[in-house]
């Protein structure tokens, strides 16, 4: 290659001192080191706020630690003990029911909302913003709103139904076993539906209009176009949203803590709330960690499925 740089313009060889002075710059100019540098803050955040608590929790779950006592290693004793605890078994059942019932509802309602929001309706942007509200409002705050709606004495639902003559006594939303879990599920569905709606809406906007037009020319009706054109394209988004939602629902805490604190008689306890009660209120933090970690294999499987799917999509 011809020498494009005249000798006068060529940079002088670096002295030891100068090499030191420009070292950071060269570090930034090299792609591998720059990449590492850019990853550093995120990695630190992950290590401090995710990895450290996780491994601490893992360690605690293998000890008989109480609040303020370091405890000693007891192996899997906490996990085994929990299997014999009827409240824990009820908690596990509740968690599965809570997640597996609410997620399909959220998916269906979110899909419906997304389809509506994807059409040319008046005030579409305002409506889209409004739909996001349940997701944007802090859960603790929106849960307080639901607490008022489900209030055993002052519930507006009960008031309305009584006013219309449909019931004679207040509905015991949070005080009976089935109704309590149904009530917290309704609140969860309300809060979680916008997540599906917005993510699926993003997927819908990627569906080329030409495909719909071509299908319409070929005589496909609205349902056929939806099933054969739209669904295959947004299937990936729906799957990812569903996996994310299952993970979030399994790990829920705030909504149930505000509404019932796991009551009545533990009918609404899920892993998060029971772990909190045992670990922090009852001070058995080792056992509390074990309760929380029972979620881990379930969430890990879901996370692996999610990651494998995403990797396949990228490939």
């Amino acid at each position, binding site marked *: 290659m011809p020498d494009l740089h005249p000798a006068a313009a060529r940079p002088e060889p670096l002295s030891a001192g100068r090499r030191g002075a420009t070292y950071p710059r060269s570090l930034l100019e090299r792609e591998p080191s720059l990449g590492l540098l850019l990853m550093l803050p995120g990695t630190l955040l992950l290590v401090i706020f995710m990895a450290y608590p996780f491994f601490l929790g893992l360690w605690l779950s293998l000890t008989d630690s109480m609040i303020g*006592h370091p405890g000693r290693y007891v192996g899997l004793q906490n996990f085994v003990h929990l299997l014999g605890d009827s409240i824990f078994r009820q908690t596990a059942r509740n968690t599965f029911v809570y997640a597996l019932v609410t997620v399909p509802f959220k998916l269906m309602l979110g899909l419906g909302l997304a389809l509506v929001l994807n059409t040319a309706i008046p005030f579409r942007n305002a409506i889209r913003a409004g739909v996001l509200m349940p997701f944007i409002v802090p859960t603790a705050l929106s849960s307080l709103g639901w607490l008022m709606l489900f209030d055993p004495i002052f519930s507006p639902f009960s008031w309305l139904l009584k006013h219309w003559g449909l019931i004679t006594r207040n509905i015991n939303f949070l005080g009976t076993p089935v109704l309590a879990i149904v009530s917290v599920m309704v609140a969860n569905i309300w809060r979680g539906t916008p997540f599906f709606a917005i993510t699926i809406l993003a997927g819908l906007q990627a569906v080329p209009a030409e495909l719909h037009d071509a299908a319409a020319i070929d005589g496909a009706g609205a349902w056929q176009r939806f099933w054969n054109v739209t669904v295959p394209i947004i299937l990936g988004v729906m799957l990812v949203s569903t996996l994310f939602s299952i993970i979030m629902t399994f790990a829920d805490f705030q909504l149930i803590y505000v509404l019932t604190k796991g009551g009545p008689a533990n009918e609404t306890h899920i892993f998060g709330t029971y772990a909190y009660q*045992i670990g922090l209120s*009852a001070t058995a933090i080792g056992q509390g960690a074990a309760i929380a970690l029972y979620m881990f294999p379930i969430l890990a499987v879901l996370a692996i499925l999610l990651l494998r799917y995403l990797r396949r999509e990228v490939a």
Partner: protein
Amino acid sequence: MAKARKGWRAHGERSVRKGAPGISRRALLKAAGTGALGLTALGTVPGLWRWGAAAPAQLKGTSLSILQATYFIPAAQDLYKKQAQEWGQVQGVTVNTDFLNWPDLQPKISAAIQAGGYDIVELFPGWNYLYAENLVDLTDLAEAVAKKGGGWEGFVANDIKVNGRYLGVSHGNSNDSLNYRISWLKEVGVNLPDPAEQARTGKFLDLTFDEWFALGKKLKAKGRPLGQALGHSLGDPGSFCYPYMWSNGAMEVEKDGKTIAFNKPMFVDAMKRFIQAYKDGFDETGPSWDDSSNNKAFHAGQISMTLNGSSIYAVALKDFPEIAKDMNHTLIPKGPTGRFSLLGARTFGILKNSKNVAGAREFLAWWFDDKQYGDWIHIQGGYQLPSTKKWAKDPMWGKDPKMYAFSLQPSIGRDQGWAGPPNAKSGLAFSKYIIVDTFAKAVQSGDAAGSIKWGADQLQAIYGG
């Protein structure tokens, strides 16, 4: 000499509240020099014992964080905050006071023990056992407070010593009795004592549980049921469930603190009666109620009787005068084995990981002085049952005859875990709501024996584990 703030007089190197008893440090040292003035003796001089534990620390520039449960008498919470701020300003200490909903308090204390952040925490009954290794030994201070106050009330004395040490100083506990609407009970034929006469004559509405349930049936028929919370909450649910258990021959454990005594035939029968009574006479939404639900229901005219502190009455006096006029209180009903009230001591403790133990001790010593503590007691008008005996004779109790029942409550008080001693296990059972959930399960399932068996198994796992 420190410059005295308005309302305070300079006193040696620090300021003390005007009117507060005082003595100069010189006099104290002189007395100490006689060799006869130990900690115990210091307790005989009001306002002084605080000097005895250690050399006064340099507090200026430090900070103090206090965590306690939110108050059902808002004026008392405001007063406490004001007192803490006043003390902080005089001492040059930045004082922060946080008040949390009752069910949120214990998790926050647990977090503070793990991670720090608070110096003084309020401990509900049993928690001084659960957190024993994380609390500063305040035996000197507590003994001085007890001595100055004529000794602990019985419900306090039984409760607050952990392995012979005081890990906090008790301020007493909030009260609890049966609140009722006078006119509504009269309508169903109950012969009620005249509120103005009851304190003088010692007569109060004396009910058994079965009579109460029968009364509830009549009241519910008129659309004014009884109200009883059975949710996951620290106050009202346990205030009914524990005494009902004790009144019907059952308890968590026998006196030995080990033998489970929960699944008793007498209690199973009593639970069957309660299940029926809950349908017939109570507002059946109770399993979802927390500590504030019955207050709201009573003020809204939805229920006619409920077990609660005098906070319902205190709020009614201010905001619902017609209801206040039409209400009175009586002791919790009695059962075949007696009349009991769940009443343990609440204490102020200092966390060992506090960065200002000296400041925390100074504050508690100051706050438990008659002036501050007395103002705090008086503003609650009897809602707060004082921890020491001398307050039982306080004129506060005679001021309002409708508060008479509350003055009797300490005599029937028992703590969690009774007939065993209160300890970490009884605290654990309470934190897991085992007794309350047994009742909630029973009214939900209608299965008295099965629910009690479930509770007994849970207790066995705690006490036998």
